[in-house]
């Protein structure tokens, strides 16, 4: 398998692993980190394509994704903090108010 295929496969694998982690881990912070993993997988595929086509716009897009990821985590963590303070636990299962 050539380089591109390898990297794309890796990207898919990282994305899937992140998805599994979001779906199965119960700790809120760990879920956030798995989401970061998914994002990283996608960034990897972006970079692969950018390198192959040798356009800078791909890299610019990656840069912007970094910015967005940073902003996102800056908000998500305080939200998780507040939620955790409410229920005194980081367990996502504690929040099932929308049941039924």
């Amino acid at each position, binding site marked *: 398998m050539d*380089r591109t*295929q*390898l*990297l*794309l*496969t*890796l990207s*898919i*694998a*990282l*994305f*899937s*692993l992140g*998805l*599994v*982690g979001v*779906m*199965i*881990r*119960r*700790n809120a*912070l*760990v879920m956030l*980190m*798995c989401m*970061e*993993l998914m994002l*990283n997988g996608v960034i990897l595929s972006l*970079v692969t394509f950018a*390198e*192959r*086509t*040798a*356009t*800078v716009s791909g*890299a*610019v897009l*990656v*840069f*912007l994704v*970094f*910015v*967005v990821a*940073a*902003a*996102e*985590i800056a*908000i998500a*963590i*305080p939200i*998780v*903090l*507040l939620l955790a*303070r409410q229920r*005194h*636990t*980081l*367990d*996502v299962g*504690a929040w099932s108010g929308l049941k039924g």
Partner: protein
Amino acid sequence: MSLETLLLYFFAAAALAGGVLMLVARHPMRVALALISSMVSLAGIYAILGVHVIAVFQVLIYVGAVMVFMVYVIMLLDVRDPSFLERYGRALVPSVAVAGVLAAALGAAVSRGRIATAADLAHVQPEGAPAPFAVQPFSVEFLGDYWLHFELTSVLLLAAVVAAIAVIKAGRRHDG
């Protein structure tokens, strides 16, 4: 098998290992460290590809800011709660199955498709020009053609700061 390819395989394996460890580790701190190692491996892959700017940014922003923040919060909170004792939620097997199917489908698509190369595109890199992903050409092009996007990101960050302050304030009000 050149050195480049070997390193590539090595870093790929490391990234994968980090991902798997994330799923398995019990303590959130270990999960964070696994993620950090995954990210650093990815930075290595970017460097091998020659996309130096991105590699640097990966380490600076992602590891240096995002993961540090995450580690800080983990250390702040008491993590020995029900989620510590019971790592996995209820939908363990179905989740793995679905994700596996998704991965298989995407992988099948990748192995069958044809991916465009630089030769397919009209844009042709002049011979001997410095690699487009070095810092200087990158920033020239970035701030030249994409300055609007740059300004917009600063707006986005401003919004994020304001939002973060609002969230904290709300939290404080709630706690009395």
